[in-house]
């Protein structure tokens, strides 16, 4: 037993050393070299959320001998437009990239573009959420967004002893948020003493979010839980609670791990945050992409284990899990943030 954990430790140290060594310009050359671009397509590209994931992709790429630079290989509209994403994917196909990792803005808009890419032999992997037609991509990686709601919902319900009124700040229409909100709604429905108010739309706008949260607090004096399905919603809820003088009286559950939100957790305004593992999700996605391109998974033989033959080489859904951040561990996250 002890020997086994020692072995793990040694392995870990070795990997860590590798990581340190690969941090520089020197990259290890793996057996299979990808000569070309792996592109990452997102949406609302100017929000800081993507940085962790991009770091993960860069780290994995360095390890796999792939050139990936967030200033060159990161694409996407500055808004939530699915049709713009589709156009960009089409253009990347025309450009002749080797593989595309995409965070779809919605379930459907990029289906035709992904179909087209796959037809041209360019693998599509989605991160954060999947799409309505699984035959148009290899697989999806991310925290099960529904489970985010389950985790956060149970956490909050326990704190209020299964009794109270819950407000949810979200962005309806964006699948990720819809799934998280549904997770919360369905989890909280299991507690007969809890009433969930209709969903509130923040439009991903901090000011609007705060204004709507404040209105919610005012209209419902007995409100004791506020939930944000993203960092904007969580931070907006925190500011509204603070201004209403209800810190401690309302349990606030946020999402992700922005600097703002971590500060609110440390101050005790936000009770907890459910964070997806952005770095490792995208780190894994890059690896999946490499394995597909290098034809590493040969369940029925080389070159034929493929979506086209209805034999997907990678799992259709890989749940990369979540982390719950609260006062007990928030310092670790703040420290991690300051290191970047």
């Amino acid at each position: 037993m002890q020997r086994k954990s020692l072995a793990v430790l040694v392995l870990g140290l070795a990997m860590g050393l590798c990581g340190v060594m690969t941090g520089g310009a020197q990259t290890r050359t793996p057996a299979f070299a990808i000569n070309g671009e792996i592109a990452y397509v997102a949406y609302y590209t100017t929000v800081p959320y993507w940085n962790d994931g991009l770091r993960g992709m860069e780290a994995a790429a360095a390890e796999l001998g792939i050139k990936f630079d967030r200033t060159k290989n990161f694409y996407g509209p500055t808004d939530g437009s699915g049709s713009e994403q589709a156009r960009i994917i089409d253009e990347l196909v025309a450009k002749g990239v080797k593989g595309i990792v995409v965070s779809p803005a919605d379930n459907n808009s990029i289906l035709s573009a992904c179909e087209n890419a796959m037809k041209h032999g360019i693998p599509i992997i989605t991160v954060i959420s999947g799409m309505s037609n699984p035959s148009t991509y290899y697989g999806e990686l991310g925290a099960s967004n529904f489970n985010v709601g389950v985790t956060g919902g149970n956490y909050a319900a326990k704190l209020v002893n299964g009794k109270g009124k819950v407000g949810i700040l979200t962005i309806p229409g964006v699948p990720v948020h819809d799934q998280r909100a549904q997770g919360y709604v369905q989890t909280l429905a299991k507690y007969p003493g809890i009433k969930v108010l209709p969903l509130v739309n923040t439009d991903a706008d901090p000011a609007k979010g705060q204004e709507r949260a404040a209105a919610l607090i005012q209209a419902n004096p007995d409100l004791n839980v506020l939930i944000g399905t993203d960092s904007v919603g969580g931070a907006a809820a925190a500011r509204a609670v603070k201004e209403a003088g209800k810190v401690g009286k309302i349990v606030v559950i946020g999402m992700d791990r922005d600097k703002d939100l971590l500060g609110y957790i440390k101050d005790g305004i936000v009770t907890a945050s459910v964070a997806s593992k952005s770095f490792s999700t995208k780190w894994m996605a890059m690896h999946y992409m490499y394995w597909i391109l290098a034809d590493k998974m040969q369940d029925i033989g080389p070159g034929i284990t493929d979506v086209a033959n209805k034999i997907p080489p990678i799992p259709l859904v890989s749940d990369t899990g979540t982390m719950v951040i609260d006062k007990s561990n928030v310092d670790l996250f703040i420290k991690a943030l300051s290191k970047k």
Partner: protein
Amino acid sequence: MKEPQSSPPKAAGDSPLRSLLARREMIVLLLLLLIAVTLQVASNGLFLQSRNLSVMADRKAPEALVTIGITFLLIANQFDLSVASVMAFSGATTAWMLVNGFPMVVSILGGLAAGVLIGCLNGFLVTRLQIPSFITTLGTMYIARSGAQVITHGRPIGGLPEDFIALGKIQVFGLPWYFILLVVCVLVLTFLLKKQKSLYKIFFVGNNAKAASMVGIRNMRITWNLFMVSAFIAAIAGIILTSKSYSASPIAFERMEMRYIAACVIGGASISGGQGSIIGSILGFLLIVLIGNGMTLIGISPYWENVIFGSILAIAAIADAYSTGRRRE
């Protein structure tokens, strides 16, 4: 008369080359060529490959149609901020009807009607109640957007029937049918705009509505019609794009109206009315499309997109102010 007869004025067009070069369209065209050459070099020849060019025709032609309606309105000295919302509203209406079992033709007519309804409302508020079009269409922009959200319950409507999806994939001469439609519209309307009497009158309305009404030009009716035309075109574009993205999203095309208006201004349409051309607006839109395409081909960080776009718009605004100023001298 004792005064010596002044020599009869010369006919227009005695120096076609000079007047051609003085046109805004030429400037935009030159700018386009410059960008195209830059892209071709910077992308190692990827830009001019037919695969890349066809992406732009395939994805952007429906939106290019929308700039035609906006151009008409800008010439008539009116704004239409509601187009992008109308696109989403019409697309959502059609999608909702499709998934609720209406026949395809009926659903498409329903979507078109929804759009024209908004256009009719715009026309009514602007001409009958004399509310400035900027405010009117700002209002209907929110109304139509909300309409789309109500119809979709805030979520994209997917699962559209195969025959509707196939509509967006029909090709004529190897090109998307709506691209052919765009080319035909641009050619025909560019010719007709200064030739067809009703279209020609738009310039008079936009230049001086009062004076136009005093020479028997029914400016109210023209303005109202133009709002309906603009919304109708937006509805067509919205429905095509719904078919192309297999779904109708309530947040689709948000804030795109500014891009479309910017395209027209870049192409020489004046914010103060009375000026503009279809071909100019299309070239302006193409400029915006090329910027987007170049970002992907060269791999420029999305953070830069609005800087580049904003700079080109600023240049267009300066050109507009300069040419207007020179005219007023």
